[in-house]
């Protein structure tokens, strides 16, 4: 046992260990199983080997979910204070495992149609999940960075997983280059923070760095951190990679990237700023036109830019994956409202939003995944034409996801927006709330466009949907979450409140 570690540490790390072991198991299973040849042309049904891999991956995720029970209600730090076991981490781990499961359900048929062998696909999904889990639990800059790298490298490979596809390759390269650049910025910011505080431990940084330490160095560190995190959450002006990567990556991975990676990056953002730099939220980073500024000033600007630019750019997209990419940029802006409003209500709202967003966004991507057929790329909005007539179930589901993304009741998206704007008003950011609601009105224009195509336009072509039971299950899960939290959001609100309360509460 490493020095300083105890058996309790391993007990609490059980979910991460399960995912790690599971990932290795999946890779081993893939190597050992027969039928590793490329899929026979003309057959879109996943073969037996695909099914086994899917089942094993789901079992691993379920096992990790069960082992989360070890941390339920816990509030402690483990592994010499590198890792927090608290409600905040738990909330995000549930989100990651859930989105990973939905992503995996979306995958087998899609990979078959794309003509690629699953191979390391499931392994990489699991390692990305592992990275996210570490990001949510870590309270030390180095640990956070390790989690981030684990996640990011998995996604670089996953984005380019469809090797024959030019767009997929382009996505991978773009994501890798810009991702590496942003990681550099982030790391530089972290190192400056370490230099100032003399520690990488967030809770120690929070107590060491007081207002008098503020200086240009801290400002620079914060700017670098904001820029690095801005890339990761795809906030304007650090968003340029998102549309191309989202368009080119395999559709299930795009969904996972836009939900899991974004949520993990927000977890990291909240850990670093709310837990590590609470003293500098509103002041301490110098003055701007006589007004003291803190880190939330940066997020304020990022939020407005992301919402507005994201929504306006989404208006003109004809490619549904690009549209959802821009919309996810806008959604990062909404979540940032919660960050600006700050704890407790703002963080609550951000958590609620990320959970609701996970369901509706993954649901939308599940429908887009269905559109992919052997001869149809299925990412043009027109590919949805007449869906209501040919596949009413899928059309209703997509309608709900679009309305939820636009923030109309009775969906989870509405409740999430309600809480985000509520938090903004409560914290006195009425202007931000007004910009937010006007943006959500704008956004409905392009979400409704999708609805129009599905329901109103008929004729020229009908979408050939490829629905597999697994994919249908993914849609049903996403739909159930979207509607349930829209009609009866009480449990989600309670859970988010309990989880955000854990953030920043020293629990040694």
């Amino acid at each position, binding site marked *: 046992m490493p020095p300083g570690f105890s058996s309790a540490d391993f007990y609490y790390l059980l979910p991460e260990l399960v995912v790690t072991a599971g990932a290795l198991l999946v890779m081993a299973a893939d190597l050992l199983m027969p039928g590793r040849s490329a899929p026979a042309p003309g057959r879109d049904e996943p073969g037996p080997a695909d099914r086994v891999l899917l089942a094993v991956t789901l079992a691993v995720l379920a096992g990790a979910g069960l082992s989360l029970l070890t941390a339920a209600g816990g509030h402690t730090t483990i592994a010499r204070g590198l890792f927090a076991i608290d409600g905040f981490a738990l909330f995000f781990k549930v989100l990651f495992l859930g989105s990973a499961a939905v992503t995996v359900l979306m995958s087998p048929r899609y990979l078959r149609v794309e003509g690629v062998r699953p191979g390391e696909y499931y392994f990489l999904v699991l390692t990305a999940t592992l990275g996210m889990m570490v990001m949510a639990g870590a309270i030390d800059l180095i640990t956070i960075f390790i989690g981030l790298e684990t996640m990011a490298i998995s996604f670089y490979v996953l984005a380019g997983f469809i090797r024959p596809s030019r767009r997929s390759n382009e996505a991978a390269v773009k994501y890798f280059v810009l991702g590496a650049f942003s990681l550099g910025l982030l790391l530089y910011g972290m190192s400056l923070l370490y230099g100032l505080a003399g520690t990488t431990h967030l809770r120690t940084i929070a107590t060491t760095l007081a207002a008098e330490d503020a200086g240009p160095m801290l400002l620079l560190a914060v700017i670098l951190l904001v820029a690095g995190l801005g890339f990761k959450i795809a906030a304007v002006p650090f968003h340029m990679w998102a549309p191309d990567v989202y368009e080119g990556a395999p559709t299930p991975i795009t969904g996972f990237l836009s939900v899991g990676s974004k949520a993990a990056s927000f977890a990291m953002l909240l850990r670093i700023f709310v837990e590590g730099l609470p003293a500098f939220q509103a002041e301490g980073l110098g003055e701007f036109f006589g007004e003291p500024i803190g880190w939330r000033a940066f997020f304020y600007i990022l939020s407005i830019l992301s919402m507005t630019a994201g929504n306006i750019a989404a208006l003109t997209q004809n490619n549904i994956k690009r549209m959802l990419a821009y919309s996810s940029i806008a959604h990062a802006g909404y979540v940032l409202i919660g960050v600006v409003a700050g704890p407790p209500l703002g963080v609550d709202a951000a958590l609620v939003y990320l959970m609701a967003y996970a369901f509706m966004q993954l649901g939308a991507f599940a429908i887009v995944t269905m559109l992919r057929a052997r001869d149809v790329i299925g990412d043009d909005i027109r590919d949805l034409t007449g869906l209501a007539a040919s596949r009413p179930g899928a059309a209703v589901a997509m309608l709900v996801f679009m309305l939820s993304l636009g923030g*109309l009741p009775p969906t989870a998206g509405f409740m999430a927006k309600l809480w985000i704007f509520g938090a903004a008003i409560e914290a006195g950011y009425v202007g931000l709330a007004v910009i937010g*609601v*006007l943006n959500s009105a704008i956004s*409905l224009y392009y979400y*409704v466009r999708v609805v129009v195509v599905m329901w109103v336009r008929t004729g020229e072509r009908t979408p050939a949907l490829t629905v597999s039971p697994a994919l249908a299950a993914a849609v049903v899960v996403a739909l159930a979450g979207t509607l349930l939290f829209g009609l*009866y959001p*009480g449990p989600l609100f309670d859970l988010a409140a309990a989880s955000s309360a854990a953030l920043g509460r020293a629990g040694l």
Partner: protein
Amino acid sequence: MLSLILFTPLAGALLLLFVGRDRPNAIRWVATLVAGLDFLLAVPLWFQYEPGGAAWQLVERGPWIPAIGAEYHLGVDGFSALLILLTTLMGAIAVLSSWAAITERVREYYVFMLVLQTGMLGAFMALDFLLFFLFWEVMLVPMYFLIGIWGGGRRLYSAIKFFIYTLAGSVVMLLGILALYFHHQSVTGVSTFDVTVYHAMAVPADLQRWVFLAFFLGFAVKVPLFPFHTWLPDAHTDAPTAGSVILAAVLLKMGTYGFIRFSLPILPDASRAFVPLMVALSIVGIVYGALVALAQTDWKRLVAYSSVSHMGMVMLGMFALTPVGLTGSIIQQINHGISTGALFLIVGIVYERRHTRDIAEYGGLSKVMPVFAAIFLIMTMSSIGLPALNGFIGELLILQGVFVVNPWWAAAGAAGIVLGAAYMLWLYQRTMFGKIENPANSGLRDLSAREVLTFAPLVALAFWIGLYPAPFIDRLESSVERVMARVQPDYSPVARTPVPPPVQPGGGR
């Protein structure tokens, strides 16, 4: 009881999903029976509501989102009881009137109609602000589809315009709701969206003004008040007949309902402060709507613009902030639902037969469609406020209520009525009288039994309210009093009525 009325249409919509798509008549029967049943369920409200009884009756209350203090809280007063009756009646009529008009995607159509009805009823019943907002937004999507799929003309444009206008207004309203919520929370420490609590809450004047403006955007778009009315002519014209009927008869009432239920009693100081603005917009709406209606060549568009004018009248009566004016405003809302709803049905009848709404295409229809002509005449008279019909009572009360505050406002309102008589009678003359010059009109069928059935309740109501409005006014008394007690606490008709001013030219009718 209320929940039953509220969810019967939704249950009917779900039921429809189990009726085969290829059996349109079965679908029509189910939808008609569900809508009819819903009206029958609502009829007892008329008797159960005790005019002098508790402020909120038939209350149903249960937890919904305890984390933020939102509740499932329904209840009615006289005002909402009447609107619920109107909604269920018009819902049934709209469903019945679609029998022959809708031949494509029949099942989806009725599903949307019924979901829409649940949304409308919920908005009138909810006593929890968040619940109200939920139902308010739920109405948007079915209406969008009704216009976008089954409409005519530039239906997609009209549908999205309706959608975005209403949505933009209502999201700002949501911010107003949240501002009140957090204000209440910070003052009392209690988290609640309970409207009845808000009705007794003291809100600082500054906050009142902002919240009033936020609510104003949400409600004024819906009414629609000039200059937020531009979505209405498009939406009304391009919607299918039943959509126009529901839109005119019920959806527009959402706006006026919102003002009376929320803006006036929760934000009394701001309501008083904004009277000049509201009155000015109302008067502009009355006159502008009427003038534009005069210039229309499209039958349906003419009726749509008449709606703008009439709703301006409703708003004028409301913002006189006198009990008589407010009562008149509410009665006139019901009247507008009856008469404009009927007028849209009338356009629908001829459109179904001739597939044109161009007024110039018609003429002399009274020769071939005498029953139709008679009903149209009654509804025209109802719309222009002829005594013995419902419009007269509403307009009289409104003018009376407005007159004591400012005779000039009443004069402007009366001018609108004169113009209203002009465009309606001219329309009637151009379409119904004269010789049949267009051969296409010579063979038109008169109303079928089903069509007569759709008009019968509206004609009966027009006469009932016109001849014996007392039961309606009684039911509104306590609602109006409670609103007035908040917004004009010192109002006493005797003390405030000045010595009757010299008669203003054009001030009476």
